[in-house]
């Protein structure tokens, strides 16, 4: 088989695959999958995609990404519940606020690289955590409860789980396609160059810091979008949303699924959320241990993650064929 036609088959099969997955997702509420669980997994998939944009495609490990998801969660929650905003405005506002906080953190953190960058983002996120703990409007340990879903654009009632599900699904698809667009754009190519060899990018005249900062802010904005949606889905925002363990989990989702791939974070997110849901009742604290073990195994032996390993396997097979 010639390489040209096998490439076309690849394309076609890939597209078919995604249609199948999409069909399953669209049919989900009608085939017995619990919509609230699916929505939660989709929100975290959006979060993981945002994180992967930063880690997989730009090469920056932010270890405090929960701060952005969580601050948008609180902001949207408060605006929709206490200020009576409509859900779509609340979500937009939450996203913007997350982006602003991302800008502030980014300005401070971008100055350093690698490990230092990670530790700074962790520490800044911890600051956000404590602010959320103390601020009167967040409800501290009790969280921000009773956030109504309201009506989208004034007339679509989101209280119905199925309606809300399709809204979340639509946003997820948009984000997924959006990330693909960003990565394949000229801007995305520069990010890739920075990830591969930053000094060379600098020598080519690119203002590397500006590119990194923009990537950071984009990532935090999308993370905020995930958080805002999650608040509407579950009806509350709590300290768990800004806790560093969540930051660790999103790293794991991306690593497990496959850094630098598109489907990886989604796969990782569904796996981890599904695992937690399934195990929480049955094994209690062992969930933490299992997550830790997966981390260790991934770092030592499975660095490319599911999708990464899959793609590498395909490459090897193609080399053998050709």
């Amino acid at each position, binding site marked *: 088989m010639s390489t040209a036609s096998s490439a076309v088959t*690849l394309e076609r*099969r*890939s597209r078919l*695959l995604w249609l*199948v*997955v999409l069909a*399953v*997702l669209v049919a*989900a509420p009608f085939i*017995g*999958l*619990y919509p*609230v*669980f*699916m929505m939660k*997994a989709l929100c975290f998939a959006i979060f993981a995609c945002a994180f992967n944009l930063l880690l997989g495609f730009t090469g920056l490990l932010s270890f405090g990404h929960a701060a952005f998801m969580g601050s948008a969660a609180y902001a949207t929650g408060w605006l929709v519940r206490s200020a009576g905003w409509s859900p779509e405005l609340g979500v937009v506002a939450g996203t913007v606020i997350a982006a602003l906080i991302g800008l502030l953190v980014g300005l401070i953190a971008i100055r350093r690289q690698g490990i230092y960058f990670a530790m700074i983002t962790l520490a800044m996120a911890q600051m956000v955590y404590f602010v959320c*703990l103390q601020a009167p409007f967040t*409800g*501290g*340990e*009790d*969280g921000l*409860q*009773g956030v109504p879903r309201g009506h989208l654009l004034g007339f679509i009632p989101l209280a119905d*789980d199925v309606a809300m599900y399709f809204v979340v699904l639509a946003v997820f698809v948009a984000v997924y396609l959006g990330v693909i667009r960003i990565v394949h754009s000229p801007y995305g190519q520069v990010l890739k160059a920075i990830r591969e060899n930053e000094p060379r990018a600098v020598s080519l005249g690119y203002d590397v810091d500006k590119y990194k900062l923009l990537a950071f802010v984009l990532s935090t904005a999308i993370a905020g979008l995930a958080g805002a949606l999650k608040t509407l889905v*579950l*009806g*509350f925002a*709590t*300290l*768990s*949303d800004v806790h560093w363990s969540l930051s660790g989990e999103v790293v794991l989702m991306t690593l497990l699924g496959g850094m630098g791939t598109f*489907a990886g974070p*989604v*796969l990782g997110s*569904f*796996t981890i*959320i*599904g*695992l*937690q*849901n*399934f195990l929480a*009742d049955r094994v*209690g*604290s062992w969930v933490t241990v299992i997550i830790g073990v997966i981390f260790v195994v991934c770092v030592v032996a499975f660095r490319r993650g*599911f*999708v990464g390993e*899959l793609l590498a*396997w*395909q490459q090897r097979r193609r080399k053998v064929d050709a």
Partner: protein
Amino acid sequence: MELKTLAAGCAVAFASIGTAHAQFSGDVIRIGFITDMGGLYSDIDGQGGAEAIRMAIADMGGNVNGKKIELLTADHQNKADVAAAKAREWFDTQGMDMLIGGTNSGTSLAMAKVAAEKKKPFIAVGAGTSALTNEQCSPYTIHWAYDTVALAKGTGGAVVRAGGKSWYFLTADYAFGQSLQNDTANVVKASGGSVAGSVKHPLSASDFSSFLLQAQSSKAQILGLANAGGDTINAIKAANEFGVTKSMKLAGLLMFINDVHSLGLKNTQGMYLTDSWYWNRDAESRAWGRKFFDKVKRMPSSLQAADYSVALNYLQAVKAIGTDDGDKVMAQLKKTKVNDVFAKNGYVRDDGRMVHDMYLMQVKTPAQSTEPWDYYNVVETIKGDAAFTTKAESKCALWKQ
């Protein structure tokens, strides 16, 4: 490529394993119990509470009119989001008919909201915040055992009457602590006392030293501990360590028999506390307490007795009206008097408050205690109507008629 399809399919399949499929409660009565099973509040309720509910189910013969009774339990880890998510999931996919709320007021407030949305009964036992029957009252919430108003009127009032006029509060920084501090401060001020200040500590704090220093510098007479469980125990220990007890008297606004057991009579003798039940109160309580002890190896706290009472009364209500429909059961519970080992002549008010007698007790000295767990002298029985929020004070819209 086939592998990729397989992988994606696996992910979605995995996801579906992680969910539960919708079921109907048609022929099973499901009671849910979500509480702190492993944290600072696990002794006073926790697994012991689940055991108590199982005792009630057993006492009902394991079924009501032929329908089997099932108990679902979960640990909310003192996180409101875990509690609310679990409650929602059980209502949506497990056909849960009634939810019993364990310790931690924040989680109960969250669960109450979910139950109201699903129009199913939520009966709070372990939580203390009076907000459950005031600002956050709902037609589907019942608050069964104690609340912060009763504690304030009981212990707060007693300490002020004994001469403690100026207070400083050490408060757990969440719904319960704030509620308890506010209600007690109101009682103190109404009795002519004053509040010198307060400091908030994080839930499950590990080191109370800096908070106690602040308390000491306030020069107040009484250190009001507006916290519970492990926090109260550690605060009392630290207070002893730092010599705070030499210049201030400690008022444990919420104490359970497990806390006294942990600290020992030496550290707690003479302290006042208000509680809804005591195992050594009368013959019936003693008998039930010993039955519980045989299973759990610890004497029951008032919360565990209340868990038993809630399950029993709920199942009796379902039996009486022949259905587990949420609205009908709520109406039945509000119509029926509560008469069991936990309370005598108790009744459920329109604001959701289960009104019953509370007991002002004092911790015995080591010499007075005749057997293990014999820790209290009952100083006064506070009549139900005097213990809880009155109609005039109430902030519940449902009770204003």
